[in-house]
């Protein structure tokens, strides 16, 4: 009796493990296979993309599509634009958001609370509602199609999320630390830089990682507020057709897609924990 129920348990446990791995394989396949397909398409010679069934291990891998992107599409300039815009956005955006978050967490008055509520409420405003007037305004003040103009809009897009996360984080730093320093004669600036900022490092890292991804994903802003300054997300929808490919230059799209995907996959793999923390803390846009 005892033996058989024990064996039954063993069989059940074994089945459960098998079931778990089957579910695992299904989810992993659905997510990873399309990404793999984009990758192998990018190293397949354009002509071979018209093969049926699809060859998932290309016979003649080639970097031809990447070469074409660099030589004829100006890939490096677009990577440069993307890096400059995202870099400055993260740097300036983080500074002003830390300032704001600190004030929102430490100073309480009706006006300050109202300002915080306003910033969070603006999260709900869709960019299509503000697009046309903002576009005309940007042209009027000569910020249209300029780096400063784009960077202002990129920063604005990350402000609500960043302020929310950082404010909650500052709120968890005990005020007593600052009070003690204050009694020892530390000025406001000293308290901010020597006590609060060092403690905020992990939260700042988290928002920077997530904002990097958000900025790389930003499509609407660079599409409608610039012409000449092209970033990667816009470039991928405006690639030239090399052969007649039903309107999709899949050879170039897959190569450009992979260039965008590579940093994203690396980021996700390296910073999985920070990204999860950021997502769980709320406010991250899908």
């Amino acid at each position, binding site marked *: 009796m005892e033996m058989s129920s024990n064996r039954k348990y063993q069989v059940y446990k074994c089945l459960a493990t098998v079931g778990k791995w089957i579910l695992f394989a299904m989810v992993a396949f659905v997510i990873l296979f399309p990404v793999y397909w984009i990758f192998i398409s990018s190293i397949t010679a354009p002509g071979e993309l018209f093969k049926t069934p699809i060859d998932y291990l290309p016979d003649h891998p080639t970097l031809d599509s990447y070469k074409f992107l660099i030589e004829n599409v100006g890939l490096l300039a677009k990577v440069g634009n993307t890096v400059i815009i995202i870099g400055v956005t993260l740097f300036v955006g983080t500074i002003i958001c830390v300032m704001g978050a600190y004030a929102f967490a430490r100073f309480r008055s009706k006006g*300050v609370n109202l300002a915080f509520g306003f910033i969070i409420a603006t999260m709900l405003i*869709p960019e299509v509602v503000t697009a046309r007037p903002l576009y005309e305004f940007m042209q009027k003040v000569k910020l249209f199609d300029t780096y400063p103009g784009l960077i202002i809009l990129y920063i604005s897009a990350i402000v609500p999320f960043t302020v929310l996360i950082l404010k909650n984080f500052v709120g968890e730093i005990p005020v007593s630390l600052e009070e003690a320093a204050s009694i020892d004669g530390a000025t406001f600036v000293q308290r901010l830089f020597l006590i609060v900022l060092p403690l905020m490092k992990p939260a700042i890292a988290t928002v920077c990682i997530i904002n990097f991804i958000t900025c790389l994903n930003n499509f609407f802003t660079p599409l409608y507020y610039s012409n000449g300054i092209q970033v990667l997300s816009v470039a991928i929808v405006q690639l030239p057709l090399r052969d007649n490919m039903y309107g999709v230059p899949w050879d170039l799209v897959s190569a450009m897609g992979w260039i965008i995907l590579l940093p994203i996959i690396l980021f996700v793999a390296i910073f*999985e924990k920070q990204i999860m923390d950021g997502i769980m803390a709320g406010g991250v846009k899908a």
Partner: protein
Amino acid sequence: MIQKKSLQWIAWVLIMPVLVLRGFTTIYPIVKTVLNSFFDIRILSGVNEFAGLSNYINIFKDQKVITTLKFTAIFVVVSMLFHIVFGIGLALILNMKFKGRRFLRTIVLIPWAMPSVVIGMAGKWAFNNDYGLINDFIRRFFPDFQLSWLINTGSARAAVIALDLWKDLPFFAILVLSGIQFISGDIYEAAKVDGADWFQSFFRITLPLIMRNVLTLCIPFTLWRLTSFDLVYSMTSGGPGEDTSLIAYRITMEAFTNLNVGYAAALAVLLFLVMGIFSWVNMRFMSKFEN
């Protein structure tokens, strides 16, 4: 508190940059959009005159917009139903205790982190009848399968919704998972002792405890679907015809391609009102739910 009243000005200095930036990118454009919606502004024909409510009245006569509104409704409802059912399912998978868990939790972040335009452009090719990934996969089981997904209304709509789910469902699942993790293991232990099987403990314990969390999540996810633009722009351009056009896409086309600015503004105000009403109803519903 360490902050004296006299130090309030420091707070405003610190807040000012983010406040001015957000104000500049939201308040003025919204006011201007509302004003524009009462004007007939067509840049191509140089018209700019007061039009009262005619933009709003035209919305309901415009076949393109009616098709758009129809698909927007289908898109939001179908996508959200799948989000809830399969999102909870995927969250349960991510919560399973086994060796592949960490790997799985990492890779589900990939679709969330990918730009929609990359997914949309890849989707355009993936759903191609002859050379696409989807039909290639189906033909390995049904060799004679033929379907030009993006040319037929029904299949094009299904394809757009499928890609939307591919991108966002894992993200939804992660957020549901964070709710599941809050449930104490003791409850399951107690249920097990009382002889509850897996299904009973799921329907009697897990589901009721995460339902509030799931319904709360549905608010932003529905609003994001209502304002979804990138995917349709890059994948179908609203085609065939206007059958996969979403409201945010329609507004943008009117504002930037047809340059029918007043009309676009009226559509934008309508979208904003719908979002506002939806959020309000939801919050009322949630507060009832809690009582």
